[in-house]
């Protein structure tokens, strides 16, 4: 997984509540057996008409936002299905950070597994950042200091659980780290085998 430390980019503003994973990547693209190449499918039905032509009014179809690495959106972003194809599509398109008032649980978790930073901010701060986004202002995300710089002297602070931060900063492989605890896991399993033998 690619490390995440700092990110500087313009941001694309998608002010919709409850953006669900069916919107982020529709079903027809879930048939792949690969993780890569899904960027062209991102927001497919909002981005392209029925004939496959780009819809001009959709933010990610327009320069400079087609190069945005930050996406700003409404409450409860990523609700719905558990498909990790959603963060894969965002990542493949080039988005490394999503900012919203709140996220759905599984999507939020899936982001971290792919080096994407989801940031939760209060409504007024999200609004301020969308204004900055509309004006093509560059926004800088600093994960080390947990700050968002937006070209003035009032950076926003953001919260992130410490283990998630560490994983992102170092680009850790979760499984390798967990496997280091195999002695603990195996002795737990042994205890369980005695307590609930019907499970084995």
């Amino acid at each position, binding site marked *: 997984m690619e490390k995440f430390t700092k990110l500087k980019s313009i941001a694309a503003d998608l002010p919709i509540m409850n953006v669900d994973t069916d919107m982020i990547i529709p079903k027809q693209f879930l048939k792949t057996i690969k993780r890569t190449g899904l960027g062209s499918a991102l927001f497919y039905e909002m981005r392209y008409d029925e004939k496959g032509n780009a819809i001009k009014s959709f933010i990610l179809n327009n320069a400079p936002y087609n190069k945005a690495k930050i996406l700003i959106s409404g409450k409860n972003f990523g609700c719905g299905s558990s498909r990790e194809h959603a963060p894969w599509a965002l990542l493949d398109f080039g988005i490394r950070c999503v900012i919203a008032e*709140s996220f759905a649980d599984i999507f939020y978790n899936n982001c971290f597994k792919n080096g994407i930073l989801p940031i939760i901010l209060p409504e007024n701060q999200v609004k301020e950042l969308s204004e900055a986004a509309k004006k093509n202002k560059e926004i800088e995300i600093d994960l080390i200091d947990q700050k968002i710089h937006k070209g003035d002297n009032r950076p926003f602070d953001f919260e992130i659980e410490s283990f998630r931060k560490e994983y992102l900063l170092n680009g850790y492989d979760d499984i390798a780290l967990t496997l280091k605890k195999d002695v603990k896991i195996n002795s737990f399993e042994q205890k*369980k085998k005695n*307590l609930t033998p019907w499970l084995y």
Partner: protein
Amino acid sequence: MAKTLYDKIWESHLVDEQSDGTSLLYIDRHLVHEVTSPQAFEGLRLSNRKVKLPGSTLAVVDHNVPTTDRSKGIADKESAIQVETLSKNCKDFGIEFFGLTDKRQGIVHVIGPEQGFTQPGMTIVCGDSHTSTHGAFGALAFGIGTSEVEHVLATQTLIQSRVKNFKISVDGKLPLGVTAKDVILSIIGNIGTAGGTGYVIEYCGEVFRNFSMEERMTVCNMSIEAGARAGMVAPDQKTFDYIKGRPLAPQGDNWEKALKYWSNLYTDKDAKFDRELHLQGKDIEPTVTWGTSPQDIASINGKVPDPNLEKNEDRKKSILRSLDYMGLEPNTPIQDIKIDKVFIGSCTNGRIEDLREVAKIVKGKKVNKSVDAIVVPGSGLVKLQAEKEGLDKIFKDSGFEWREPGCSMCLGMNPDQLKPKERCASTSNRNFEGRQGRGGRTHLVSPVMAAAAAIEGRFVDIRKII
């Protein structure tokens, strides 16, 4: 200290906890389907890892499978590859697999309980958000992403942090014609699609105690639509009776041991919940969604909302967007909405009791001329049972198509899709834009409401029919 059911299951699966609360949770059971697993198996191969406990994992194909004649296999090339990939992965890694022609094949959340794979007190995961279904048995069950699927395959654990406890009780009795689907839609309408975020919900009260296991599954299934990590109902005699004798249920001595263990799975009397919601069964009505989020609910006697009455600007925009997508005018009575399609099925409402209820409504009647209606059983065994009871004949005589089991039009990864602007009364769980097909318009309802809508060609109050 008094504990909730969630606390008890959490604590009994805690392998390791760091000072910041990051925990390693032991996973008892893992369900796998073809869409969210190929990249996980690929990851295992690339890093030369094995599946830690193949016997704790069960795999099935459901999302991509055709529901029409299967003798010639799957026509869609990509779907076929995905299905074959799962079959090969299961063979290579030693996992039990229900393939396309296995009579036990079906929707992953239908077959888990059906096989006795799902049991109380377990942690159960699957790369699928509706894993919450299995909480009906008093298990802690939730959906995970593909990276986590790989993590569980390799380590039989998951990195998790604990969430809060949310008690939802529905007391008293439900009016005739009001179902488990109406209960969960009403709950989601009440707390919103993010209302359960950061919580595990425990469903309590007389209504849930009176529910059958299948009705409890319908409710727990849609916990994810309320944003919750999981939903659960404490196990009771009904739960034990349901499990007893199923192929993967504990046998003999183990059955007695399991019963003893399971009977301690309840929330202690003085346990504290972080949040509570209390509803009365008598207040719940047959419910129809009008918009593109499961929280967009209306009573069958209600109307499509008027965005001009909404003061919150964001909310108003969202109503306008939904109405535009759904092709509905503000203030239209729900009963005036005409439909083109009816879909009976899915992991929410594709079980045998659902099909029996539908059959009662449509028996001896004809599907409206303007409506195409299909019934898709949740599993091969549900299909066989329905055929044994003659339900298939009732459906076919009424003009329903009787299909092979799978996810089907719930998400339309196979050919079962809505065309643009087609309007569907669906017993599934999501009415998102494009969910059942690009431009398709979904109204979520209970099986009996869908059945009545199929006959009338529009939504009707089921209470006036039964």
